[in-house]
């Protein structure tokens, strides 16, 4: 069986706060084993 996840996530610079940025990044590589609850990806704001 297979699960396909499709989702929206932040990708680029904020419009109002100059140099701040948010971006979603996958934490995994193709071929990696992953378990329920482990992070697939994160985004950060600064």
């Amino acid at each position, binding site marked *: *069986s297979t699960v*396909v996840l499709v989702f929206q996530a932040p990708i680029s610079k904020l419009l109002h706060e100059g140099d701040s940025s948010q971006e979603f990044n996958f934490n995994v590589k193709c071929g990696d084993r*992953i378990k*329920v609850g482990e992070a697939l990806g994160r985004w950060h704001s600064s």
Partner: protein
Amino acid sequence: TSFIKNFPKPQPPSSVNGANGNSKGDSSYLLPGATVATILMLGALHARRMYDDKKIEKRQEKGIEVEFQPDVKASFMSFLPLRSISRCWGQLTSMEIPAWLRPHVYKAWARAFHSNLEEAALPLDKYTSLREFFVRALKEGSRPIDTDPQCLVSPVDGKILRFGELKGAGAMIEQVKGFSYPVFSLLGASSLLPTTAHGNVQEETSESIKPTEKSKKSWWRVSLASPKVWDPTSSCPKKGLFYCVIYLKPGDYNRIHSPADWNILVRRHFSGHLYPVNERATRTIRNLYIENERVVLEGVWQEGFMALAAVGATNIGSIELFIEPELQTNKPIKKSLNSEPPEERVYDCEGVGKVLKKGDELGAFNMG
């Protein structure tokens, strides 16, 4: 060697009927000969397949991507009654196993498919059938959920096959290098998926939807009514569309969890084929995920749209939803597959749908 040792020696002709005696003797060799030939042939085919798979693994380790290669054997599978085979397999594995035999059967299964039995929530003899064992729950704390509010967690145990970003209208998901399929074919033509190229997605979701569309797409109201999680006036981060494909082996934990705090608003059930979905199948069977039986859940999370498609396979034909226990999949159908639109249900209880927290169980893949 034992076969050769036990091979009966031909008797010399001793009478006029000797010729008949010889032909009788020859025919007695046919059965063991055919059996040995079949075993040798199956062994050779298995060895070749293992060699091919090993070769592909080595190429992947070197960073060389496998490409799509249509296969005659894969085409032949469309003529097999895979759905019936799947249901028979389900019935077979639902049979109650004697209590004394259960630990042996489940340990054998675990050895064959590399399952971790120490994580099982119950003692092995409590699972009455292989089917029940297959969808076993895990001990409390076996799968800690990442609590970072800015992360998306894996909904299943499995192997990452593909991931990436979807760009522009008519976005395609790559099945394997050299073959892709449209995301709308996977989720359904009536999907609420935002379609513009990234950069405009949020503008479309919050502003450009016409009033008539708003009444239909009530789930957008949820995202707009949740300033705590998505406030377009404060930061206006642009949104992109991403996808991730995760493959579950038969020995994996087979329950599905919520990847984030999520309001599920629509469920779609597509009846379809039940081709195998192993890695070999992904590179030989065209449109594998959009031909197979699947359940699609759509809704909103703090960053906008989210959909999860649970795709069945021959051995794991039915998908059970804990949030909708009455849903039945892999049923016998008379109409031709893929000709009917998906059966859809809107979970629109007061506009919020089914509310799930990150890590909550939402369904399971069942045998057959």
